C-alpha cells in the first residue's frame, strides 16, 4: 500500500517532478541549449541593427531612447510571449507518454512548461541587462516596478493564449501550424522593430487592438520614462486578454481532458 497523500500534495509533487524532468532534458543535458538561448536574440538584434542602418541611415528615429536598448527590450519581451505561446502549444503532445501515470494531467504539463520557459527567459533578459550595462549601453531600468509588472503581464498573456492553444492545437493540428506561421507577422505588428510613432495614426489605431503592443510599450516606458510612445497604451486591455484566455484555456482543459490524454 502506498502512503496516502492529499490531492494538493500530489499535484505539487507532479509539478516538481515534471519541472525537474523538463529542466534536465532541456537545459542541463543539452549543451547547446544555453548557447541558442542567448545567441538567437543576439543574432536577431545584430540583423535588425544592420537593417536600421540601411533603412534609416544615422538618422535618429526615437525620442528619448536609444535604438539598440530599445530594440533589445522589445525583442526579448516579444520572445517571452512568443516562446510561451509556441512551447505551451506543444506541451500536451510532447508529454503524451506520461499520462499512463494517472496523476499527471495534460494541464500540469502546460503549467510546468510555462513556469520553466518564463524563468529561463527572465534569466536571459537579466543576462542581457547586465552585459548591456557592462558594454555601457544604457539599459538600466528607471522604474523597476513597471518593468517587472509589464514583464509578468506579458508572461501572463503568453500563458493564457498558450493554455488555450494547447487544447486547440492538440485537437486540431492545423491550429498549431497557423499560429506558428503567425509569429512573424505578430512580430511586425507589435511595434518591436518599427517604432509605432513612425506609423500613420489611422494604422496605429488598429495596431492597438493587439495586446502585445501594450505590454512591450509599457516595459519600454519602465526603462525610459520620458520615451515618446503612442497615445492609448493601457495595461488593463492586456489583462482583459490574459485573464479571459486563461479562463477559456482552463475551461477547455477541464472539458477535453479525456480527449487530450488519448489524442
Amino acid at each position, binding site marked *: 500500500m502506498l*502512503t496516502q497523500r492529499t490531492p494538493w500534495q500530489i499535484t505539487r*509533487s507532479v509539478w516538481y517532478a515534471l519541472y*525537474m*524532468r523538463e529542466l534536465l532534458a532541456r537545459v542541463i*543535458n*543539452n549543451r547547446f541549449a544555453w548557447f541558442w538561448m542567448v545567441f538567437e536574440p543576439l543574432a536577431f538584434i545584430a540583423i535588425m541593427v544592420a537593417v536600421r542602418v540601411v533603412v534609416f541611415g544615422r538618422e535618429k528615429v526615437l525620442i528619448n531612447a536609444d535604438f539598440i536598448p530599445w530594440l533589445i527590450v522589445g525583442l526579448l519581451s516579444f520572445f517571452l510571449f512568443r516562446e510561451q505561446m509556441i512551447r505551451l502549444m506543444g506541451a500536451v503532445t510532447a508529454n503524451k*507518454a*506520461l499520462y499512463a501515470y*494517472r496523476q499527471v494531467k495534460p494541464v500540469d504539463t502546460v503549467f510546468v512548461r510555462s513556469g520553466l520557459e518564463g524563468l529561463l527567459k527572465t534569466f536571459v533578459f537579466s543576462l542581457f541587462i547586465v552585459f548591456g550595462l557592462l558594454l555601457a549601453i544604457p539599459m538600466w531600468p528607471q522604474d523597476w516596478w513597471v518593468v517587472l509588472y509589464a514583464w509578468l503581464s506579458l508572461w501572463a498573456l503568453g500563458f493564457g493564449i498558450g493554455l488555450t492553444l494547447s487544447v486547440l492545437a492538440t485537437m486540431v493540428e492545423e491550429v498549431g501550424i497557423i499560429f506558428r506561421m503567425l509569429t512573424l507577422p505578430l512580430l511586425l505588428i507589435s511595434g518591436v522593430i518599427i517604432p509605432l510613432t513612425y506609423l500613420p495614426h489611422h494604422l496605429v489605431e488598429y495596431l492597438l487592438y493587439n495586446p502585445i503592443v501594450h505590454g512591450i510599450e509599457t516595459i519600454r516606458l519602465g526603462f525610459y520614462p520620458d520615451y515618446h510612445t503612442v497615445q492609448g497604451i493601457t495595461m488593463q486591455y492586456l489583462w482583459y486578454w490574459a485573464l479571459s484566455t486563461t479562463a477559456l484555456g482552463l475551461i477547455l482543459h477541464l472539458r477535453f481532458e479525456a480527449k487530450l*490524454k488519448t489524442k
Partner: protein
Amino acid sequence: MIEIKNLYKRYHNHHANSWVLENVNLTIPPNVSVGLVGPNGAGKSTLLRLIGGMDTPDKGEVIRHSSLSWPVGLSGGLQTSLTGRENAKFVARLYVPEKDVPNIVKKVEDFAEIGAAFNDPVKTYSSGMKSRLSFGLSLAFDFDVYISDEATAVGDKAFKEKASKAFKEKVGQASLIIVSHSTGILKELCQAGIWLDQGKAIWYDDINEAIEAYYQSAGFSDKKKLNYRRIARKYKKMANAQKQKISALQNQITELQEANPNP
C-alpha cells in the same frame, strides 16, 4: 477491489459505431490475479486501459478501491536524454513523498541490474536494458494491483524468470491483471479469468475455464491445435518472403541480361 459498472466503450474511427465493450459489469476481488483472454480486437487492451485509468469510458465507471500501477514494463514514459537514475527519480516523485524518493531509486537500481549504465542516458541503452529499467520501476512501488499488457514477453529469458518470480513473491500483498496470449504465463500467475467475446466480458473463478471457453469459441478444442495453426501461418509467411526474394532476383537477372546482351 475494483468495481466495473455498466461500462461502455467505442472508438469513433470505425464506419459502424459498434461497441468494443458493451455493458461490462465486473467486480475484481482483492488479492485475486486475473488474466484477460480473447481473440485479437476483442477489447482486452481497451479494458485494461480503462481499468488503469489511461482511457475514459463512454458510459459507466470504474471504481478503484486499491492502488493501481501503470502498465508494467511500459517504456514510453522514459525520457531518453535523461539517465536511468533521473528517470527513476521522476517516477518516484510522482508516487511517493520526497523523503522516500532515494529509497525507491535504490530499489529500481537493484532490480534492473544494469550496473553503471544506470547513470547513462537512456538513449544509449539496448532494448533489453530499457525493459529491465521499466520493470524495475514498476516493481519498486508497493501497489495493490499491477496491470500488465503482454509485458512479461519482453526482456531476455533469465530476466523474465526474475520478473515473474518477483510477481510471485508479491502474491498475498499484491495481485495482477494481465493480458497475454501465452497460456503458460496466465496459468502460472493468475487464479481467475475474464473472457472477452463480442463486447461482453464473462468472469470465471478459474483461469483454466476461461482459457477453455475461449478456445472452444475460437474452434480449437485445445491449445495444441492453436499452436499448429500459428506454426502453419509462420511457415506460410516465410515461404511468401522467399518467393518475393526469388522473383526480385529473377527481375534483376533479366535486367542485367537486357543491359548486356553479349556477355
